[in-house]
């Protein structure tokens, strides 16, 4: 899941201030699940903006819509009638959703209301942690199901470093040392010797370093 957190109100207010009619768009996918941009957050943000502008003596017209998924053009198409009556669009989706809207409605300014943070998993109610960096070449099969790229602060491929203390990372005692986890897991699997296999220097072309990536499934795309 992609996780996000709402931007500070000050920043959001600065974006929408010049306008009178705002279309506030939520997304019912990842950002709903991480409670950053679903219907609930849309309503809360709308209410907060209303109040802020009422304080300024301004009546802000805010229309709330939450789409099933903001990163698909068909869903984004549903906004077509509402967009006309708005001066600007405020999106609570991740960056993918914001860009899909921006691409479709070129004549309207689009602002993000959340900061897209990471691809993560939920540890428990209200706690999400980074789990994947989308490197494009998954190594989880040899690291016991724990990703050193996403979860080691130094993304060491041959850890742990000398800062691993009592299972925690040297940068923060609340962060697990990924290599401790990998080691524990390999031990549990009876694969201790694997830790001595050198992971060769990674080819980062499959990652962001290779330029913006795209997947084309010929069978589906045609």
């Amino acid at each position, binding site marked *: 899941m992609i996780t996000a957190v709402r931007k500070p109100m000050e920043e959001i207010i600065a974006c929408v201030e010049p306008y009178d009619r705002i279309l506030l768009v939520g997304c*019912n*996918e990842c950002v*709903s*699940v*991480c*409670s950053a941009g*679903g*219907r*609930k*957050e849309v*309503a809360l943000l709308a209410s907060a903006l209303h109040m802020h502008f009422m304080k300024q003596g301004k009546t802000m017209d805010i229309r709330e819509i*939450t789409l099933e998924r903001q990163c698909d053009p068909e869903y984004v198409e549903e906004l077509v009638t509402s967009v006309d009556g708005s001066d600007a669009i405020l999106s609570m989706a991740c960056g993918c959703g914001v860009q899909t809207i921006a691409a479709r409605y070129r004549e309207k300014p689009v602002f993000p209301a959340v900061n897209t943070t990471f691809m993560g998993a*939920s540890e*428990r*109610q209200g706690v999400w942690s980074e789990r994947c960096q989308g490197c494009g070449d998954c190594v989880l099969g040899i690291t016991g199901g724990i990703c050193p790229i996403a979860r080691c602060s130094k993304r060491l491929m041959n850890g742990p470093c000398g800062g691993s203390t009592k299972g925690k990372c040297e940068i923060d005692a609340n962060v697990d040392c990924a290599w401790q986890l990998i080691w524990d897991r390999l031990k549990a699997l009876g694969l201790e010797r694997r830790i001595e296999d050198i992971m060769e220097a990674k080819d980062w072309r499959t990652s962001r370093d290779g330029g913006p990536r795209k997947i084309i499934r010929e069978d589906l795309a045609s």
Partner: protein
Amino acid sequence: MNTRETDKQSVLVIGGGVGGIRAALDLAESRRDVVLIDKSYSIGGLMTRLDRTFPTNNCDLCTISPHLSESGRQLRLDLKPMTVVEQVEGQAGDFRVTIRTLPRYIDVEKCTACGECAEKFPDWIRFTPGLDPRAPTCMRYPQATPYAFSVDADKVTDFDALQKACKVGAIITDDKEKTETLSVASIILSTGAELFDPAVLDNFGGGQFPNVVTGLEYERLMSASGPTLGQLARPSDNKRPARVAWIQCVGSRGINRQDVPYCSSVCCMYALKEAIVTKERFAEDIEASIFYMDMRTCGKDYELYLNRAVNEYGVNLVRSRPHSVVEDPETGNLVITYATDDDERHKTEVFDMVVLSTGFRIPASTRELAGRLGIDLNEHGYAQTSGFSPVATSRPGIYVCGVSESPKDIPETMIQASAAAAMAGTQLHLEQDTGAEEEDFPPEIDVSGQDPRVGVFVCDCGPNIGDVITVSALVEEVRSFPGVAYAEAVGYGCSKESMDKMESLIREHGLNRVVIGGCSPRTHETKFQDMMRCCGLNKYLVEIVNIRDQDTWVHTDRPADATRKAVKMLEMGVHAVARAHPLMEHSLPMNQNVLVVGGGVTGMNAALILSDQGFRVYLVEREARLGGIARNIRATLEGDDVGRYITELAEKVTADQRIQVLTQSIIVDHKGMPGRFTTGIQTGPRMHYMQIEHGVSILATGALANRPGQYLLGEDDRVMTQLDMDAKIADDPESVRSMEQAVMIQCVGSREPGNPNCSRICCQSAIKNALRMKNLNPDMQIYVLYRDMRTYGFQEDYYREARKQGVKFIRYEPERRPEVRADKDDLAVCVYDEVLGRSLEISADALVLSTGLIADDETTEDLSVMFHLPRSDDGYFLEDHVKLRPTDMSVRGFFVAGTAHAPKSIRESITQAQAAAGRAQTLLAKQWINLGASVAKVEGDKCAACLICVRVCPYNVPYINAEGYSEIDPARCHGCGTCVADCPARAIQLMQYEDDQILAKLDGLFERMN
């Protein structure tokens, strides 16, 4: 099943304390008519006077209120306060009972509890009886049932004036004592007991020094609704005490003239509770000391409570029976003189307050009543029952529960009450649920698509509303609200006349929504909902606006403000009701079969009662034969023959046509919802798989005899458990007779890390075996090494007897456990005697270890996973509410009984088996289960399947269904709305409290204001 004459017979419950209420409710819910009488003006008994209850330290009012208001509403329950039994004739199944009701001078039906009479004539009116030292008009608790006043005729000097003061005409000046004769199939005695008045003792200053109070008085001092409004202050100077002492066993476990010999069973826990709450709620630095003889915390998880009191709260325990309490007249402080085991010299200590932990006493009135009922009392004045029929009195058809039977705490009372209800119910034909009660109402009008036509009816409740605001002007203003089709003032809205008038107005004006401006929906919603149904309208289309309790009563001196507020409140109500829509109450057809898991004493008893009531029972037992752990027990402390009892019980069960016994069987899967469960079982030596369908389940899987590898158990033949000794005495008395010296060690494998709780049964087992060994060989020297002797209730008699016969009791501390040394010729136990202050070495022919019970962890774990039931930390099943629902489990339709719940004796297990059978009948008595309408509902297409509802639900109800969205089973939803408020997709609504209804209230409040 016996066929019995069914001339509209009922069960008579005498005494309206928690036990009586529970028994009456159980009977009413299982479709038996019941008459609940109490000599007092309103029901509730002792519990409503407590501040908070252990072990949760919860506030009682919140937990008991549903019980009390429930009892006011039950159709089959006839509540008769101020009523006593005169005479009982006839026999079980056919008693004729004459009862006498004292005049109340107030018509309960008409009284609205407005308080007008009490306001004018405070001396003449009783709202609540009791020990409360405040004015008699005070409300002891807000949920008083019946919700009405009563008149103290002796004090009234002018009945006419009183009559004029009551605007509803509820005063009956010529009210007379009434006598009537009831046709009764069975009777439950639950009159409870009094608490000992320590004023008769001369050494503790009770009733003499102001700062010496009883435990109950102390509860009142702590209580938010007590005389000091929750400010703990000592009586002499209203200052908060800094040092408080409790003295245990005041008037109990004694041999002096004023003492009773038995143990009152509850005082240790309540003293601990009071000490904890004192520190927790008032000030951590208040010093709390408890002077005690034995700390008897042998209930479920009570030992943990004791540990918490000592370790977390720093409650100071002093093992000593103090000699005296003397007051320093200057300061009002109290000096306690006492001596301890390790130091016989008298010590003194000064306290600001002393609390006397007084126990139960049977009042003389109960002895009289017993005479009229024709039942035997034991030597202590409690109802005599037999070992294997714990709630049956000496007279067939008359049952007993609660403290009338023996001293006990609230959960045990609740268990026994349900048991008594079940047994009393067996005397009465179980009526088939024909749904007749439902059919009194006309068919519901379909209001969908209709624009709201709201009718507003405003009560004046006499002066209660009418004197503060001008109702007619209010109504005038309401008429202008959008959506209001009709508005009218209706005087006393809840009077019969007004209700009739409203009904016809609703019909006449084609109203499809109603707002009542009157009193609290907590007390009157049901009444007006019924009115709606009479009009053919869904009961959820009415909104009650609480103008009386929350406006005119509290703004009496500001009529203009009160009027403005009433307008706003009504406007909120009108807006909200306009958004209301008809709701369906969920109901399910009830499967009438019962699954009983576990074929021990508990399971067999539950199965037999339910089979006797006509239900099909599947009794699943893991072993090849029935009987469970009790097969290893030969006799009880009271001397009953357990072996014969089990054999007879098993024969009865096996012969019963309606009970299908499945031995060598285990449960392998389970699905369904309350009332419609399907459980998979593998049965027989070949593990044949079968599925059974059942409506309720009773878990009676028992516990295991503990055999920890301590003190050479299992290594040396001379070392054995109490169970082993029990068998040896019965099977090989000669070898026991030849013993010259025997040692018993208590708390082996209990009350220690790993198994911190008390096993409850070991002290009585030890006493039982010691007495039987003495019986075989009076010269035998028996030493019992113990930590606390926990012979609660009447077991104290046997403990005293054992001491009398020369059994020696030596206390040890867990830090200095006894040690055992053995060689071929000699077995010796070395123990440090805390009293003598030195070590003793005792050689023994037998070392008997009191090893108690441990949870059958594997079984309870498997079943808890399969049935989604919680367990306690030590592996016993966890009941739904440790205080008030000790037999019900958190999943509706599941009940727990016997040692699967907690360690307990055979007798206690039988009681809970009966209780479980009784509780099961409250569901089985109905063909349909009404699940209410206030449940959370998911809009699937909005759901993001985020799992938040799944995680926040306190009852683990929501789940993600096969279609990939959250689903909430209305049968299991409790209707709290937590998932609704946390849903990030706003995909869930709580029926009856939907978002647009709440927002509409805000609109109603603010719309015309801005």
